[in-house]
């Protein structure tokens, strides 16, 4: 299976994650949905299995694998049917910690990487604000120099892992006199630093087992050694990881859509109506057949984009395509799967009901579909 893109080790990785999801996540996820967060011991267990350090150096406990392995993680976790759990993990592994990996200096990596890879500490990326999402340059949080430290002021919104996190990579404007792209810096902020607080946990439509916060920085003093990478170069750091974030969101969507189709195929082949199964009705089986074709197409596009990235090639257009296509497709798939579940699909105890709610944010977060389509368009102009 998928010999084109994956090595024997990657296939084994997939097999182990699938088993872990079936045995450790699926039976417990509903409780986490109620609690509003994923318990820390689950993340530690994943850390023990090396699943939080797939891409990072062996000296910190990582396994030095490539983008395609992150895709395996996102896709297999997506099959859990608990989008909030997936978001908790993927933000830690593929959206927040890459900033440390890409731009942290040795002292910073030595200090934080081992705990992040083992799951002892969970990390968070705080860029989005109430008035600035995909438009990163519109952020208002500022950091002003004050002796050997900086004072952060402002607030951050929709921050995944924000309530329960330990280490926050926070973007702030350090130079407001220049173009915003040249005046943003990322700071490492730890839970408990003076002037930093979680103002509230946000109540969401889906991803309910993921803790999402609004953060407030009120003269939060951050020592200069906590500048991640270079002063005023934060915008490029954020841009650099966009491709990875978007690739894993596409992969997560494909995992979720595949699982929803499996659940629905089972349901319609058992469910009887008017003297036959729903599967005996041509419209139903053909619509599911077409969705299977689309999901498979989305999967191959995602693998291809990830492969380009793993080869160090420019893949912004392909990644944008994968993000736009797969994150819309997962919503289309969920709509149809819920429809074919009839009344059961509207009841809280069915997995498909939750999956419908969870899928919704995926065409919004990590680069809205409209932003992705502009990225594709920008690269489609014929001279």
């Amino acid at each position, binding site marked *: 299976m998928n010999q084109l893109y994956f090595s024997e*080790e990657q296939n*084994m990785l997939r097999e*182990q994650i699938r088993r*872990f999801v079936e045995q450790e996540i699926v039976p417990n996820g509903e409780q986490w949905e109620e609690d509003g967060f994923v318990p820390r011991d689950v993340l530690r267990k994943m850390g023990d299995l*090396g699943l939080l350090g797939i891409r990072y150096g062996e000296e910190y406990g990582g*396994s030095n694998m490539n983008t395609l392995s992150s895709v395996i993680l996102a896709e297999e976790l997506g099959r859990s049917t608990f989008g909030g759990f997936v978001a908790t993990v993927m933000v830690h592994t593929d959206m927040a910690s890459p900033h440390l990996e890409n731009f942290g200096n040795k002292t910073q990596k030595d200090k934080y990487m081992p705990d992040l890879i083992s799951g002892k500490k969970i990390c968070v990326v705080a860029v989005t604000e109430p008035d600035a999402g995909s438009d990163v340059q519109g952020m208002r949080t500022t950091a002003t120099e004050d002796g050997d430290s900086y004072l952060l002021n402002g607030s951050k919104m929709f921050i995944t892992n924000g309530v329960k996190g330990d280490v926050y990579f926070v973007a702030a404007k350090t130079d407001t006199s220049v173009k915003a792209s040249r005046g943003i810096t990322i700071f490492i902020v730890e839970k408990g630093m003076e002037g930093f607080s979680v103002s509230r946990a946000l109540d969401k439509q889906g991803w309910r087992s993921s803790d999402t916060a609004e953060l407030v920085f009120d003269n939060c003093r951050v020592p200069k050694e906590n500048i991640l990478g270079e002063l005023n170069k934060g915008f490029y750091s954020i841009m650099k990881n966009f491709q990875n974030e978007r690739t894993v969101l596409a992969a997560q969507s494909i995992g979720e859509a595949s699982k929803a189709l499996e659940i629905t195929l089972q349901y319609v082949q058992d469910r009887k109506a008017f003297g036959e199964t729903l599967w005996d009705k041509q419209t139903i089986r053909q619509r599911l057949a077409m969705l299977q074709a689309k999901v498979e197409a989305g999967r191959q596009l995602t693998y291809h984009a990830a492969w380009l990235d793993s080869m160090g090639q420019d893949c912004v257009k392909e990644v944008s395509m994968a993000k736009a296509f797969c994150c819309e497709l997962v919503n289309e798939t969920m709509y149809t799967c819920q429809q074919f579940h009839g009344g059961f699909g509207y009841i809280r105890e069915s997995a498909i009901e939750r999956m419908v709610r969870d899928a919704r944010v995926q065409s919004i977060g990590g680069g809205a579909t409209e932003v992705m389509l502009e990225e594709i368009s920008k690269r489609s102009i014929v001279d």
Partner: protein
Amino acid sequence: MKILVAVKRVADYNVKVRAKSDNTGPDLANVKMAINPFCEIAVEEAVRMKENGIASEIIAVSVGPQSAQEQVRTALALGADRGILVQTDTDLEPLAIAKCFKAICDNEKPDMVLLGKQAIDGDNNQTGQMIAALTGWSQATFASEITIDGDAVTVIREVDAGLQTVKLKLPAVITADLRLNEPRYASLPNIMKAKKKTIDNTTPEELGVDTSPRVTLLKAAPPAERQAGVKVEDVAELIDKLKNEAKVIS
């Protein structure tokens, strides 16, 4: 102590296996394959013995097609030290597999052969017993607890009447039952390390094993579909139906 542990490639336990349309056997095309769950328990037990300082080397052995190398590799990721694949494209019967193991035992001289009590494909439950017979070693099947003290082994067996404790001398053949342990997951760093471990390839012919089948498969077919049940109004109707329709009581 050196342990030989068997791993068989079978259809994943989650897969609903169907018979081929020409009734010549199960249809395994494009089916997800995995280590037989009982073999996984055997591997786990061997790894625990190594972690506890009882075992010094674990050799994972599979008899099967080239692709069974995946299952040997998984055993290496779980903690086995090296692997042996006895490669064959024919679906071997337990006796032929046991003969391959006997030949490997002659070469490797292990102190213990650990196997699953049966594989979930054929459910034969014969290979372990046959290896014990061919080697002349002591055996304990359906183990739910294994304790080792020098060259004495105490095994608690799950039998129909409950639990039975047997004492054996090494070398011995032991087959694992479901409750012996709960197998671990292979961690990613161990998966990466497994890549560097060696798997030796051999064949039944090289081992001098006659693999000719003793059993002829006439037909593979799905079990008859179960009829839907009926609800009875009262006990009298039930007894009437049992007597006159099902004719199971008189």
